[in-house]
């Protein structure tokens, strides 16, 4: 297996698509460069929209591999009512997985 450096990073959640797991304002510890782990939340690069405009860096759950391509990853939102999933944007290549969410670092008391 290829060795790669794993670097910690901090991100802040914006939006409601990962409810109930993560909510607006949560600060998460992310391990950059870590091997994707199906079942866990990840920070991902989504493909541009149909007019070529970039989508923002996003937090999504990797539910597993693409049924048609074992090298690509299926992403989903935790909130079934909201958010973009692989049904909308297709599956992601491994280089689009920026890091794995290791856990919640801080949450607003409000």
């Amino acid at each position: 297996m290829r060795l790669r450096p794993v670097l910690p990073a901090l991100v802040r959640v914006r939006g409601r698509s990962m409810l109930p797991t993560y909510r607006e304002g949560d600060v998460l510890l992310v391990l950059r460069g870590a091997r994707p782990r199906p079942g866990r939340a990840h920070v991902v690069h989504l493909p541009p929209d149909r007019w070529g405009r970039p989508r923002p860096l996003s937090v999504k759950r990797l539910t597993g591999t693409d049924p048609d391509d074992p090298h690509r990853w299926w992403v989903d939102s935790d909130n079934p009512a909201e958010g973009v999933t692989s049904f909308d944007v297709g599956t992601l290549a491994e280089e689009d997985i920026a890091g794995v969410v290791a856990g919640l670092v801080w949450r607003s008391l409000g």
Partner: protein
Amino acid sequence: MLSLFRITDVSAHCDLPCGVYDPAQARIEAESVKMICQKVADNDDPDFRVRATIIKEQRSELVKHHLWVLWTDYFKPPHFEKYPQLHTLFNEATKLAGASGTKGEFDEATADELLAKIEEISTIFWETKQG
């Protein structure tokens, strides 16, 4: 770049941040309305007519919903400046889908008028996508 020393925002947004809009949603519901009018014209079964009335009511409401989403969420002030007829078009189209239009009657011609208005909005919509 992701870093431990600076907190990067990551999107978990409810609305698609790319903003996916398409007048086809309104058109498809309006086509359902038109088809219901056709089917009722050929069918005297009272139960069928009741179901058709209910479904036509719902589909007409969906036409209004999809048009209003385009009107309020997609189109922006510069669009209304460039296409001064847009407000009137949306007003007339949603009226055609309302109680004085496809909700209140089984008239295929009204459904056709509604589809024509949606087509006019659609033409403007796709013109705004060119720029």
